[in-house]
């Protein structure tokens, strides 16, 4: 984690973005998806990026998740300057530091609930058997899926799939969990339940959760909310007050 010393206050950040921009080329035309975005995310915080479609939420999450690289600016994730990581280093960095929760759950259909959670420990981190089982069972209990562990993804509901995805994201003990529209495919009741589980996990494992959403009803669940419009952060809300950027 990066130590930022300013005005005699020492702060540790999970993510530090400074004037981050991202351009995409569509044919000959360059489209700016993000424009000089700057922010810091503290560890164990529960942060949301909100905004309408095309505002740059997913692009920003992809950059934080080292799935893409900024065109301009500086970006540090978990204390690492991620701009200069090559393909292999990025994959290794993601495996060690970042957990992902996807809108469509993205569970591997040929693996059971248990095996889906086990996958990153086996194929990414090579965690020994005993430790693996302990971690998986702890998370299965925490997300309330222990009794469904032998089922395949097509045998469980959307809410259950997202709970499994949360467990898979947390099983590697990441410093940061990124969730792109994690509730978009869920009904409201289930969406709130999933967010409750995410918060519970944050409290239990002290992991930073960053999620994107366009659903105003669930935005209130975040402790810090960044509002995006046309690739720029237009507002930062902290629960109990507003800090305009």
């Amino acid at each position, binding site marked *: 984690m990066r130590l930022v010393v300013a005005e005699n206050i020492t702060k540790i950040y999970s993510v530090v973005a400074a004037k981050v921009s991202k351009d995409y080329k569509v044919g000959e035309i360059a489209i700016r998806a993000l424009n000089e975005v700057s922010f810091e995310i503290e560890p164990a915080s529960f942060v949301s990026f909100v905004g309408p479609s095309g505002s740059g939420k997913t692009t920003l999450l992809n950059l934080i998740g080292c799935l*893409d690289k900024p065109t301009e600016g500086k970006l540090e994730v978990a204390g690492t300057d991620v701009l200069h990581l090559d393909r292999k280093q990025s*994959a290794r960095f993601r495996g060690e530091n970042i957990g992902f929760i996807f809108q469509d759950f993205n569970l591997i259909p040929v693996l059971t609930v248990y095996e889906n959670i086990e996958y990153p420990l086996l194929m990414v981190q090579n965690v020994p058997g005993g430790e693996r089982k302990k971690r998986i069972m702890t998370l299965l209990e925490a997300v309330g899926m222990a009794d469904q562990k032998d089922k395949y993804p097509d045998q469980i509901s959307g809410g259950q799939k997202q709970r499994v995805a949360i467990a898979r994201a947390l099983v590697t003990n990441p410093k940061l969990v990124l969730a792109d529209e994690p509730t978009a495919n869920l009904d409201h009741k289930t969406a709130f339940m999933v967010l409750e589980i995410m918060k519970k996990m944050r409290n239990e494992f002290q992991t930073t959760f960053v999620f994107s959403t366009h659903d105003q009803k669930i935005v209130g669940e975040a402790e810090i909310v960044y509002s995006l419009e046309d690739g720029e952060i237009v507002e930062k809300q902290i629960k109990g007050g507003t800090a305009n950027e």
Partner: protein
Amino acid sequence: MSNLFKIAIRNLKRYKRRTFLTAFLITLGVVFVLLFVSVTGSFKNMMIGQMTDSMLGHLQVHRKGYLASIENLPLNMNLRLQAYKKLEGILNQQPEIEAYSPRIKFGGMFSTFVETTNIRLNGIYPDRELKTVPLLPSRVTNGGGKPLEKGEIWIPELMAKSMKVNIGDTVVIIATNKDGSVNGKQFKVAGVLESITGPGGRDGYIHIEDAMEVLRMEEMEISEVAVRLKDFSRLRSFSSKLEGILSGELSKQGKPMFELHTWEKLSPFYNIARMIDLMAFFIKLMLIAVVLISIMNVMIMAVYERIREIGTIAAIGTLPGKILSLFVVEGFSLGLLGVIAGNILGLIIIAIVNLSNITFSFGRQTGLVLSAKVSPMDMLVISLIVIVISVVASLQPAFKASRMEPIKALRHV
């Protein structure tokens, strides 16, 4: 590694029909190749065995230059007694040799007192000849399987039929010796020999002492020495060794005394055998093409259908090498499935072919029973070809999967 196999097998089970069809195609290919190799291989080995074990021996030694004029059976190219004794001394020292048989080969006239025709004859020591070419008695179709005695003759089947000669009949052999002197001797027909394909397949046999008498030889002269090895598979190495030893034996003029030829140089069937090997090679190439196309097709489809999954596993930190392994193992497993099924089915079909007692003809030989046999080495080679090609065919799609940008893969619909 076991996890890679677990995921690969589950993915194969995911598209059952496609996996079944591809594995079935590979299975058919393996069965077809096994059947072809077993039938042609057995035919080839049977023909080689028949020629070497009932006529030629595994290799033959002649006086240098004899083979070039073998069609005339030149008596002046025979090995003199002294040269033969020298050769005998060398052959006796070779532990690889099971037996050898000296022969006097000559052409003559065969007369039934009513009709006369020409005949090619081998003068042999029956006991030594039988040790060298043990299947010779099996060619004697008529005669009760008794060994050849002095004063007796085994004549070729075609001659017996065309000249209406029966067992026990008296015939006359007339021959000219190397000095031009003509001599004749009466023989009792003691056996009729089945014709077989290849040189000497329609020759008659008499005792070597009778041959000497007909040819008025004062001391023995030998046309050829047929040699049988203890282990036929060591023919090449042994012939090279013996050739080396024999090349050291020089005549008074300083020229090599002997020449050595394996059955391959003595029989035109060798070219047929080579053609069979070539056909087997092309059949294997076809198998390679079948496996390559089917596995590559399936793996390309598998990668295309699972782009989002690839994006997911790449996003959560799976290294490109591991993604590559996942798909290669899947192709390998599919190939292995085809190989196992193909080998089992192939063995069953070969057993059925053998139980069916299918007969065929070759040249003048009829009623040859098709006895298909496949060696474990053939099965291993065919299996390895399929497995290696399965892996090779999976590499390109697997490489493509491993190089995918996770962000693009995750966006794929």
